[in-house]
């Protein structure tokens, strides 16, 4: 090892830059240690003591002294050259001369850049999010809190403050919204129209808005409430505000509400407010009996797809009509040939989901048809999967659960975990159907089919080695205007043999049809 030094005259960098600079130099090839300090007498003596300087040099306190310990002279020389270049580099903007704007570091600074803004999206770690939301509300801004890990104790006063000041606070843990045609968070590009949505579920909102687009209608606003909003403690503050806002909005003709069943008191308030809106309201309390809250202008439905269909019919001035649990013929026609590819031992569905609400809806529908369905997010406690890493009988897994996402991106973005699990399921001789959701839109993986296809082929190869094949069933949630393009993604998946339906509910029913008559 050798040491080398270079003095840079009258060059000042702030201490954060100097620290980052030292780390960058240390990471260069052949460099063991690096330091950049002001060339004061005390620092020089410290460097000599640390043996980073062979001998003392004359102090020059306004100059920067760079020292490196390197494996050889050429590495040291290259590192010092690189270091000097890094230090002298000015940003392109600054080098061109003239004032340069630095990125805003606070909501207030951002407002100065964009004074007409009235909305802020907060995506900080949860521990900082409530304070930022409070600042934004006090500045008179509507807020979308993408951040999770915000306690209900923090959420309640924020929502009360927002309501009392005629502001909307979406979230915390609000992953999806579409405001004035702008998709926010994980959201799809849908056409504008006359249907407004308020949802306590991100993928629920994505499914309903995407299907409305697929059926030829469009969205005014899609408001996310966050998952805690309809709990008794919070009282559905944001959902009630959302209903009021859409009721007043002249562009909104039909309102859709999506949530898991709220507590009784909250449900009663929400339904009462919806009834008072004076507009047709489609209500999807996923898992609740729709007949129990259908009356007057309220139309209860059983699936996310039915919610979209009902909303489109109402927006077109048609009657809502009846909904059936039966599989449409175009899908039931797919079931028989698929069934014939399976051997008698292959009896079970293995659902691997990236969307929490898709998983929940699937468990509900399969339970009604097939009986017991194991899950990490079961409807009934007794159906809880004992080991989430190993499926048994019919199993439906939410891979977006915290258990699976610690230290890795969400499965809508990172497909590795689901791909590995698909191969694992294909190796199980009892697996008949692997059931998937594929979510497009902003925030999601830019090529889900491209991620899935190699794993599907690998899974089929693993099954083929044991003389079997597995049926893949799924639905793609998205639109042709999404960056990934719905039609292209569907074509790639269909060409690979995946049986696709238009909605998550139909995919669950198709999977059930394949395994239920055996």
């Amino acid at each position, binding site marked *: 090892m050798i040491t080398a030094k270079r003095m840079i005259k*009258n060059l*000042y*960098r*702030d*201490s*954060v830059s*100097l*620290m980052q600079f*030292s780390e960058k130099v240390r990471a260069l090839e052949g460099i063991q240690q690096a*330091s*950049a*300090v*002001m060339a*004061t*007498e*005390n*620092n020089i003596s*410290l460097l000599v*003591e*640390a043996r980073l300087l062979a001998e003392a040099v004359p*102090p020059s*306190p*306004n100059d920067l002294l760079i020292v490196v310990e390197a494996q050889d002279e050429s590495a040291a020389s290259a590192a010092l050259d690189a270091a000097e270049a890094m230090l002298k580099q*000015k*940003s392109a*903007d*600054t080098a061109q*001369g*003239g*004032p*340069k*704007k*630095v*990125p*805003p*570091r*606070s909501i*207030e*600074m951002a407002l*100065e*850049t964009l004074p007409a803004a009235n909305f802020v999206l907060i995506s900080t770690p949860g521990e900082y999010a409530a304070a930022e939301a409070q600042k934004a509300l006090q500045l008179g801004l509507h807020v979308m809190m993408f951040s999770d890990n915000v306690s209900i104790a923090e959420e309640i006063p924020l929502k009360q403050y927002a309501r009392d000041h005629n502001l909307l606070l979406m979230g915390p843990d609000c992953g999806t919204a579409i405001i004035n045609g702008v998709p926010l968070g994980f959201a799809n590009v849908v056409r504008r129209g006359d249907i407004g949505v308020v949802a306590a579920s991100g993928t629920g909102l994505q499914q309903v808005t995407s299907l409305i687009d697929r059926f030829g209608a469009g969205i005014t606003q899609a408001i996310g409430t966050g998952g805690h909003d309809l709990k008794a403690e919070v009282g559905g503050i944001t959902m009630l505000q959302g209903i009021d806002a859409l009721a007043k909005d002249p562009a909104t003709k039909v309102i859709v509400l999506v949530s898991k069943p709220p507590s009784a008191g909250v449900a009663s308030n929400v339904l009462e407010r919806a009834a008072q809106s004076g507009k047709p309201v489609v209500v999807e309390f996923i898992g609740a009996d729709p007949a129990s809250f259908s009356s007057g202008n309220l139309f209860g439905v059983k699936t996310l797809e039915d919610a979209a269909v009902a909303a489109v019919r109402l927006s077109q001035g048609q009657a809502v009509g009846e909904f059936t649990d039966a599989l449409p013929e175009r899908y039931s026609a797919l079931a028989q040939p698929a069934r014939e590819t399976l051997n008698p031992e292959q009896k079970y569905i293995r659902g691997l989901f990236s969307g929490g609400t898709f998983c929940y809806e699937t468990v509900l529908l399969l339970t009604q048809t097939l009986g017991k369905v194991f899950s990490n997010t079961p409807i009934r406690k007794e159906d809880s999967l004992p080991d989430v890493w190993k499926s048994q009988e019919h199993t439906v897994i939410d891979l977006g659960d915290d258990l699976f996402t610690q230290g890795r991106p969400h499965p809508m973005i990172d497909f590795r975990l689901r791909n590995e699990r698909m191969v694992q399921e294909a190796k199980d001789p009892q697996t008949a159907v692997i059931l998937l959701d594929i979510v497009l839109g902003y925030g999601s993986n830019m090529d889900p089919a491209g991620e899935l296809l190699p794993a599907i082929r690998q899974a089929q190869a693993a099954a083929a080695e044991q003389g079997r094949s597995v049926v893949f069933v799924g639905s793609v949630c998205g639109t042709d205007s999404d960056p990934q393009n719905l039609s292209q993604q569907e074509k790639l998946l269909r060409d690979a043999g995946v049986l696709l339906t238009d909605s998550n509910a139909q995919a669950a029913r198709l999977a059930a049809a394949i395994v239920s008559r055996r």
Partner: protein
Amino acid sequence: MHLQALSIGESVPRDHFDAVVQSAFDSALNLRLAEEDRLVTLLQAEHYELPQGIRIWQKGLSLQFIDPGTRAALRGGILRFESAALSVDLRAARVWDRRVSHLRLQPDTAALQAAWAAAWQLLNAEQRRKNADLIAEILLQPGARSLLSQRVGALLGPLLRAAADLDAKLAVDHARGLIGLGPGVTPSGDDFLIGFLAALWSIAGDAPERENFLRAFGAGLVAAAQHTSEISRTYLFHAARGQFSSAVFDLVAAFALQGEISSAVQAAVHVGHTSGMDTVTGFLLAVPAWYPRVNAPWTAAGVLI
């Protein structure tokens, strides 16, 4: 571009000076005064106050577009930069002149001791989180982990004793080992001394022997500050006169007025990369110099005079 100054520090000449740009950063620009060995600093609005600072009514503007070496002149309260289309009007700016000595800390009160204990805990946690070279509680232990810690630790006890004995000459001798020591454009040792001086100025009260000590100690430090960077020298120049940034003032005020210690410490330690932490270290470790109580939290923490 013509900007209004929001505030100016008490030591900034109000009407007339000539200067040259010494250094420029995103949020600050230093001007070397032609007739004095110190700097005046132009600051963005969100920056804390400095006794040598001119805060301008403009956020989000990087000041790096003005090159070092550019000449500047203040005439009639308007600061103009040669060949850089910028002028700053100082005439309506309010003067920032708060002094920590007016806060009169009383370390023998239970409230201050509780605040000290809380601040000590917060400081050490932050230093450990940032993996800082200087960690306050480790300075007090033998066999400190880095050479920098060992140097500061070795000087700390003698410096505190000299301050306790009001021996300014000896205090300067020990402090000289800290001047210009450590990383940063304001080296850690200098930042430590600024915190150290802030504590002594705020505790001194009306005792003339303490004030005499501070003036002599300060004068010695200013002379020794020829061995550190020009930016750091300016901070020491003001600290020797009892003038500090608003970040330091707010910290002392939280102690004196029994304010929210946690947020004051958090704000103070987040100045620069390590500067704020080093300043708070100096502040907390200087408090015991004139109050070496056996049952105080600093004694329990191992600060022995």
